């Protein structure tokens, strides 16, 4: 193991791409320019070709067929060396695991390798403009017409919408179904068909990254349907479990720029408050330790989740709360990092004298994409309260 770790570490040191001359996005949700996209796609391809991605996935589809511990070592080493993240997050963490879990042999053959190599970028079409976190209210229609489904409607918060070849899409095939859940179906939909239009959305940071996707009589082949008609909700929920931190299945690699409490400790050493390094201020020290304790607690939760005897009462507690814990932690950590900078906390990306080029300010703003996207923190808290604790629904 130590030998493998050393090998990975050496490979990463030798192969990490040069620092780009543009501002790096923080996650796949922030990829807003061609330069950013191409840089990251090239990097994912090289990691895959080196055998460091999809290490647990079956060999016959392009994976490594190795134990999870190998991928863990790679992931940890990547985080430690702070190398760029993998842009094909939806493919690696959602679509890929899903296809491997319930897809047909043909689907596995068709999609898995392209996901790993970043040849085929995936995006996600769950949210709609009028429905936010209430995915079951999806109103995008899919009407069967011979060998095709005809799509009409709109999806929003589509990351990488401009670059994606496929979308995992939740659409309504039967508006008259017994329940609103029963009328939904799940598609692995191609994006390169007529009638699909992608429009960039400007974020609070001023940058781009998300898109809104419009379907106007877009026709996709019937074999894009995953499972059966009416199984869309069930499959979508299964997909979200991958996101929500349930272990297993994901292809590995970083999916965002790691921001850790240790980085903020380093900032506190250099940033000045009231004429002294922030780290000398007893209040700052107390808060820094608070963040370290919280972060370490979450990390240890990850370790404990692998020991069933220590999770027997509520096996879902750690995985189901992962998104809520992680995203809110990041938001608060970034907010705090700004406060270390004294008057300079008011600077922004692009100012010559901003600490760390204003990235903490941008990270704070970008942090909301994760406390909102994929189910707001409020919805996440409901999910944990209802599914893990068994509390009544709203």
């Amino acid at each position, binding site marked *: 193991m130590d030998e493998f770790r050393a090998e990975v570490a050496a490979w990463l040191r030798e192969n990490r791409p040069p620092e780009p001359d543009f501002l790096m996005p923080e996650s796949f949700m922030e990829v807003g320019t061609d330069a950013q996209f191409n840089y990251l796609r090239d990097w994912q391809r090289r990691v895959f070709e080196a055998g460091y991605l999809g290490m647990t996935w079956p060999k016959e589809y392009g994976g490594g067929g190795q134990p999870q511990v190998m991928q863990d070592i790679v992931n940890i080493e990547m985080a430690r060396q702070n190398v760029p993240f993998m842009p094909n997050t939806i493919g690696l963490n959602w679509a890929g695991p899903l296809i491997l879990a319930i897809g047909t042999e043909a689907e596995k053959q068709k999609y898995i390798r392209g996901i790993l190599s970043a040849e085929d970028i995936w995006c996600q079409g769950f*949210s709609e403009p009028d*429905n*936010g*976190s*209430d995915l079951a*209210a999806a109103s995008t229609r899919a009407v069967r017409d011979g060998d095709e489904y005809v799509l009409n409607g709109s999806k*929003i*918060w589509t990351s990488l919408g401009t670059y994606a070849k496929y979308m995992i899409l939740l659409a309504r095939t039967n508006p008259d179904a017994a329940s609103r859940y029963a009328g939904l179906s799940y598609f692995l939909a191609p994006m390169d068909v007529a009638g699909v239009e992608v429009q960039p*959305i*400007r*974020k*609070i940071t*001023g940058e781009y990254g*998300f898109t809104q996707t419009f379907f106007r009589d877009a026709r996709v082949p019937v074999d894009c349907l995953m499972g059966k008609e009416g199984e869309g909700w069930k499959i979508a929920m299964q997909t979200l479990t991958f996101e929500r931190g349930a272990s297993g299945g994901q292809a590995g690699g970083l999916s965002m720029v790691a921001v850790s409490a240790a980085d903020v400790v380093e900032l506190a050493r250099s*940033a*000045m*408050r*009231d*004429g002294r390094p922030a780290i000398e201020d007893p*209040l700052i020290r107390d808060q820094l330790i608070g963040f370290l304790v919280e972060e370490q607690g979450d990390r240890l939760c990850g370790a404990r989740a692998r020991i069933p005897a220590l999770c027997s009462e509520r096996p879902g507690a750690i995985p189901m709360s992962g998104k809520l814990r992680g995203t809110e932690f990041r*938001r608060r950590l970034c*907010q705090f990092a*700004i*406060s270390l*900078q*004294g*008057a*300079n*906390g*008011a*600077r*922004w*990306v*692009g*100012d010559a*004298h*901003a600490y760390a080029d*204003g990235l903490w*300010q941008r990270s704070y*703003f970008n942090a*909301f*994409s994760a*406390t*909102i*996207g994929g189910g*707001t*923190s*409020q919805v996440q*808290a*409901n999910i944990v309260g209802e599914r893990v604790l068994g509390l009544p629904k*709203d």
Partner: protein
Amino acid sequence: MPQTLKNTMTFSDEQSMLLDTATGFFRDKSTSADVRNLIDSARGYDDAVWQEMVALGWSGLAIPEDFGGSGLGLAAAVAIAEPMGRHLAASPFLSTQLFVQGVLAGGSDEQKGQYLPAVAEGSVGTVALFEEDGNWDLLSAQAQLKVAGDRFTLTGVKTFVTDAEVATHYLVAATLAGEPALAIIAESELPAAALSRETVIDETRRSYRLAIDAVDVAGTSVIRGDQARKALAAIRDAALLLISAESAGGIAGVLEVIVEYLNTRSAFGRKIGSYQGLKHPTVDILIGLERARSHVYHAASLLDAGEDAEAALRMAKAEASSSYAFAGDRAIQFHGGFGFTYECDAQLYLRRALWSQYAFGDAAHHRKHLAALLLD
């Protein structure tokens, strides 16, 4: 000692009328569309609106009648600053008030006569206080004023100089023989390229870096010794008061944006404002607003009465800063996906909240000073 905290609260009919007028004025002149248009402009504000403000006598509000103002005092400026903050209005009003307070508190009669009437008529003044280390202590300037015969030279780098591009005069904090001092510099005295625009979190602000090397300063343009200390204290007081007032207005503005959305948007079959997870923190924002406004008008009342207002001002800034930052943060979150877009006004408030928090000391900074004032 905390027991000596007063609860003075005065608000004259004159101030009340001013508040009504200004509230209507900025509601009309500073719509969300106006604010967004001005973000992309160089100057950052609409000169026509500013000239109207001047015509209404607001730039000379705190200037004594002897020097061409209306002598209503600084407390009256709160009634302008609060609605400005509420409607995210841009103007050189704040910068100018800080310049005025510095000259009024520390300047000689000649200096007052030289600079204040022009301001009352619409000239923009500003202050250059902070430096690269981000220290909020106004007495620790690294910029140096050096004696050169009966004149002086000024060398240093100042930052966060607001509205510098349109200002005609600058009050620049420096150190002169180890003591705090201020130099009054005219726009015409600045070398080319002395000013460079800074990129700050609040896109409705215009902030500049001022870098000067051995600029010549007339002896009559220097404020030193106790007068400089008085001027710096007055600038700090005015900044704390007006930024807190602006922030209180900002909380009210963002609260309105939130409440509107919570009453409009539905999720899971109900208006989202019916969920306690959003309703209760929104009540917390309201409570922060009420406390912040109360602190602000109390501090203004003390200043009006000529009483010591340091603790009240620091309390106002601490409460207003943290409540505004909380409100701005929650505004993004509570708007869900829309809140994450540049199009949603929530970001305008969050940006301004952060600017305001880090201007002239954040809540923790003021609590530290308050501890020394009230606990020792």
